[in-house]
């Protein structure tokens, strides 16, 4: 189903489509480097505190639900696959398949967010939201446990925000592809979204074992 395509518009600052595409790819990778450093600051903070408080972090982490975390890991991994398929079909210019797999990716991303919402809700009910109402047994662990949950919410929250942004971007992309907008006649927008999405997945691949699977 390769359509007749008007030649893609090249922005004035570029010589040709090739240069434009390469620029976007380099730009995306550079952006992802900033993202790595951004999360890197958080991961460092987490690791420092975990090394200092191995015991309490272990106590605290038992309040996280490994099955739900595992389920979400599977969801995100699958979404990486569907995203890879989207890119695959975008490179071949097959619109229908692109749309299909993009929608599947979005569905998986939303599933992830819903499950995450349930988990947050659970913490709320258990009084594990850091702040004046934070409760934790045994009490001598309370301060450090609160630190653990502060980091838990900071890290997973920031990650969830990235998932949410991903969903929004994919939604826009879906519309553009559906109306066959000139800007998506080339596969680069899908490719860029794909890079971003794989990055978001990889962050979770680190978050899950670090937070949910702390060894004794």
């Amino acid at each position, binding site marked *: 189903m390769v359509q007749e395509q008007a030649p893609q518009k090249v922005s*004035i*600052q570029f010589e040709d489509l090739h240069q434009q595409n390469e*620029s976007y790819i380099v730009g995306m990778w*550079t*952006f992802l480097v*900033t993202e790595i450093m951004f999360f890197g600051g*958080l991961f460092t903070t987490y690791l420092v505190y975990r090394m200092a408080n191995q015991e309490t972090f272990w106590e605290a982490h038992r309040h996280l639900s490994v099955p739900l975390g595992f389920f979400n890991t599977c969801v995100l991994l699958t979404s990486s696959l569907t995203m890879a398929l989207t890119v695959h079909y975008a490179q071949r210019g097959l619109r229908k398949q692109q749309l299909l797999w993009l929608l599947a990716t979005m569905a998986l991303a939303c599933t992830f967010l819903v499950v995450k919402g349930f988990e947050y809700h659970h913490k709320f009910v258990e009084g594990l939201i*850091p702040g004046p109402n934070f409760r934790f047994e045994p009490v001598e662990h309370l301060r450090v446990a609160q*630190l653990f949950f502060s980091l838990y919410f*900071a890290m997973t929250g920031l990650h969830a925000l990235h998932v949410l942004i991903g969903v929004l971007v994919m939604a826009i992309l879906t519309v553009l592809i559906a109306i066959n907008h000139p800007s998506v006649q080339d596969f680069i927008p899908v490719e860029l979204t794909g890079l971003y999405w794989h990055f978001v997945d990889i962050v979770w691949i680190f978050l899950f074992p670090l937070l949910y699977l702390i060894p004794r």
Partner: protein
Amino acid sequence: MSVAVAKPGEIKHNYLNAGDTVRSWLLTTDHKRIAVLYLVSVTLFFAVGGLLALLIRLELLTPQGDLMTSENYNRVFTMHGVVMIFLFLIPAIPAVLGNFLVPLMVGARDLAFPRLNLASWYVYMAGGLIATWAMVNGGVDTGWTFYPPYSSSYSTSQVTLTIIGAFLVGFSSIFTGINFIVTIHKMRAPGLTWFRLPLFIWAHYATSVIIVLGTPVVAITLLLVAVERVFRLGIFDPALGGDPILFQHLFWFYSHPAVYIMILPAMGVISEVIACFSRKRVFGYHFVAFSSVAIAVVGFLVWGHHMFTTGQSVYAGMVFSLLSFLVAVPSAVKVFNWTATMYKGTIEFRAPMLYVMGFLGLFVIGGLTGLFLASLATDIHLQDTYFVVAHFHYIMVGGTIFGYLAGLHFWWPKMTGRMYPEGIAKLAALIIFAGFNLTFFPQFVLGYLGMPRRYHWYPEEWQMLHVMSSAGTALLGIGYILPIFYLLWSLRNGALAGPNPWGATGLEWKTDSPPITHNFEETPIVTEEPYAYENHHQQEEVASGTGASTTKG
């Protein structure tokens, strides 16, 4: 594109007269116009920071606190630091000169992502205005370093708002950094290989790498402080289970490299100006280029030298000290190469060159005193004294601002099409040099004698030195005000510059002054090394009426 043959004296079609509505400025994606937007904004913030500095020095005229309370003094020096560092020094050269020149120098029609570039200005303004709002609504008193737990748990000032401002400004530099990296990688003109790039470009490339790697770390760190403050989470406050030293590590992991974000672009300016006004190629081009990269890399490994007295392990201290000595090497390489560039050159003492000479002297002093501070034993005595204050002002004011002014004068004809008045510009440069030394040299002595930074009460016997310093500030102030007037004056009354008033090499001089909206009538082709001053003496002096010629043929 039409090539109108202009009568002599007639201003042609260019980026400045391409539209004069407010809208055409606020929605522009032309890197040159965005540079002008930045120029106006950083100048305004510099004025704010300068007024705050004036207040500090007024207060320090006498040993007692007579102008303000200690609390207000804390606010004034904090806001001075925040404004100068985040809103002036970090964006000044990259966002003004870099924005204007990077595409011109690589022979491109614009930066890779013009809309991102415009967004960076808006984000910068948003951050700047939020910080300003915080200042008028109570101010901040934590020091520009925002150390917790004071910043997160005890300060009653507008820490959160200021942090949000700094956070946003950080993103504006990230946008600029990404744009530069992509443009330099992907949009160089045909024939413009890496080793034909002007050193200004190398410097901005290294700066962008630091921005991209460092800024996100400080962004998340400051965000965590704000989160701790707002939600009372225990991340850095020991009373809540956190570790304040971790904050310092994360903060300096960015903020030491940030000092190179401030100085590397200035070093790029110096290379251009010195080659032009010595009429020689930069001595040891490759060394100067790679020293920028070396600084960008090693600069990330020395942050601990800001923490020698925090109780980090002695071994860590020793390693950080050693690495700090190491980072001085590439800086020294540059200074030696610049000096060698002037050797036997045909030196022209134009105003930009005066600033360059000032830069060289002051940067050497700043760098050498950095070595005192990088030595464990001496730093115990000097840490948190006026010696540190003098050290970083020698580098940031004597280095970065001198470089900025050198560049602003050097490329003013290119940006505006008009020459600045040479005589008064030289006078201003001399006043600034004199005022600067009078202000900051006594501070080395004060610090050596034990005057701590961030206090406004001091023993009587130091008053003389403080008075000298304050007098210098007044002089410095005059020196800074002068350019505002004569540069504005030159917009209408300056002599017409022509494409290449200095007879300089570099693609930016091959197009009209001011350049047309998309810089070049046709994409230039580069066939020779940079700084080929010895190859063709004066031949550029014969400015062609059409400008925008290419180097081919």
